[in-house]
């Protein structure tokens, strides 16, 4: 009986190791990838929407609700690049904070318009606010924002939208397909 159980454990460990190695190897193949920098991200992002990109930066923050997002900076926190976990990424662990990483992924554009802001506002006014709704800035404490802070953020976005003279604001992020911690 004990031998059978040990055999079962052995098979499980083998499968887990084999699967991990396969996903790492698959992640190493990169073609036609544009190199971006954190410093110029805001000004150049619109050129690469839905294209494969590579970026390096220091992890400033990871989302503690499941590790689906992280934010990269480069020396100062004036520009934060939002990275979201693609289907092949398990999570962005909190242990990455402060580490330099290289990320491969697809650049995504999120458009915020009046309709979006109205829906977000309505969501916040519900008793149980939805964590996934809204714009994640990566700033210290942004995940612990109360309803009033979020409503103030919406108001600021409405002003920004008005000033822009456009019907939407664009927020760019990278959906990561793979990443490496640089030592």
């Amino acid at each position, binding site marked *: 009986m004990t031998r059978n159980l040990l055999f079962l454990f052995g098979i499980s460990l083998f499968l887990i190791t084999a699967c991990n190695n396969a996903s790492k190897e698959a992640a190493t193949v990169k073609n036609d990838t544009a190199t971006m920098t954190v410093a110029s991200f805001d000004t150049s992002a619109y050129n690469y929407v839905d294209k494969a990109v590579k970026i390096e930066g*220091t992890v*400033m923050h990871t989302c*503690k609700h*499941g*590790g689906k997002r992280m934010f990269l*900076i480069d*020396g*100062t*926190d*004036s520009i934060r690049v939002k990275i979201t976990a693609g*289907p092949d990424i*398990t*999570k962005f*662990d*909190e*242990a990455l*904070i*402060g*580490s*330099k990483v290289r990320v491969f992924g697809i650049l995504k554009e999120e458009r915020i318009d009046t309709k979006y802001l109205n829906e977000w506002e309505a969501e916040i006014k519900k*008793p149980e606010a939805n964590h996934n709704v809204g714009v994640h800035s990566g700033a210290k404490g942004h995940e612990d924002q109360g309803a009033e802070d979020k409503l103030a953020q919406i108001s600021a976005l409405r002003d920004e939208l008005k000033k822009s003279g456009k019907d939407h604001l664009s927020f760019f992020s990278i959906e990561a397909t793979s990443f490496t911690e640089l030592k």
Partner: protein
Amino acid sequence: MQRKTLRRWNNALHRDLGYLFFGMTIIYAISGIVLNHFKSGDFLHPDYGKSFKEFRVTLPPGGVVDKTYALNILSQVGEEEHYKSFVQGSGYVQIFFEKGSVYIDLTNGDAQLEKKTTRYVIKEFNLLHYNNIKKLYTWYSDVYAAAMILLAITGLFILRGKNGIIGRGAWLTAIGIIIPALFLIFYM
């Protein structure tokens, strides 16, 4: 099929699903308690324990932070060997080391040391509970969820008589349904 045979199959299914999914149930139950209290704000992170300590530091000359200054600060808390990087923002600097950081208010020298302790095992349980793994695990956890439904239904018919579903069991089952319904009514 005879009633007796049906009950035997019911009990066998309940027993075997119970054995098979014992591990998953423990994982989801323990992680569930952790995530419940994390969401209630009882602690700051589901995977890491965090401790904080306030202290004061000497400000950098001219307000400019460099690696030497960062290492000097870390030496005060015994973490200079675990230095990772630092970021300077408007009025503050945050120095990162392997298992934490030091946040310094550059206007007055107030500093806060944050240290992280990994909650091993619970961290892995949370990974499964959140389904961060995705892929095949999505299907396996669906199978587990379906098995939970079967376990609940078969559990109703294990006993006969006054302690079964037509006796005491009916009252307890009704109470178990009414309690979450009351929470919905009062809090929604």
